């Protein structure tokens, strides 16, 4: 995506930045997350949603998204994915699981290079 855009969800107009992140984080709800995913060709299943919620919770608690190793360990403990690895996460979001989960979860684009 190169230009700022907007989308309409349940009759509400939602402003997006040039990379598809919400301009106003308070616009987010699960319907918005679903619409963002569908606009990029992804249908969210329960593992996608687990990841999005985990990253939102982590961001709220620590002010930043988690490290991949933290997500993998939590996924092994909290879901049926006992062999979860970075590959599992990249299968969910091939273009970058943490970054994409942030975008679909209405969080700011991560600045960190980690």
């Amino acid at each position: 995506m190169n230009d700022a855009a907007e989308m309409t969800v349940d009759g509400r107009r939602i402003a997006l930045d040039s990379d598809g992140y919400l301009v106003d984080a308070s616009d987010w709800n699960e319907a918005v997350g679903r619409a963002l995913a569908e606009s990029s060709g992804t249908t969210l299943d329960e593992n996608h949603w687990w990841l999005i919620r985990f990253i939102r919770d982590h961001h709220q608690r620590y002010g930043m998204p988690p490290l991949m190793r933290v997500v993998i360990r939590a996924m092994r403990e909290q879901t049926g994915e006992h062999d979860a690895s970075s590959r599992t996460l990249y299968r969910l979001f091939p273009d970058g699981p943490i970054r994409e989960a942030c975008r679909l979860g209405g969080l700011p684009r991560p600045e960190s290079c980690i």
Partner: protein
Amino acid sequence: MIGGQGSTLALWWRRSPGEDDLAAVEAAASSGPRPAVFLQGEAVDWVADPVGLTAAGRASADWQVCIGSWRRRHPDCPDEPVPPPFRASTLTRWLDHICPAGPVDASTELLFDVGRAPRDGRDRIETLEPILAAASLDRDVTVLVHGDGRAHLDGPGAEAWDQLTDFDLAELCVVHAPSAGWSGRGTGVEPETAARLRREAFRLVTL
């Protein structure tokens, strides 16, 4: 901050360099392999206007810029390319470069020494990020916080440091006077223990 990796000098700058720093790079290049220089945090401000960097200096090193620090300084245009002779790099790539390839014979592999108070919110996060980057590589990491550095563990943004202990990413040690004790974030250690940790660490990184 200077460290060595094999026979190649590796320099990690977190503040804009002065004349002496630049002269040290040129001197190193003239007497050995081209050093690698990694600019992170405030040092990245210098990249837009690299005062003191001569034509010879430009060619004398592999100038790497932390892309996270760079993006943070270009919020309206995060894809702004890093100008030559600099090139974009990442903290994880840099830490992988300066860490040993295999296991080390030391009680602590990487010790981060934090003794300076954060200058602002950006500095707060850019002090924590190298520690998280090392943890993301599954390195054995200890953080030693002391003196004014303890301000990182208090106030807005301090909760980010809880990741280290909540997820066993690093040992967080806070130096306190023997008579005072410590009841804040991390584990309190006395100065004697801190000195031993520094002495025994395989690599000491001052943040």
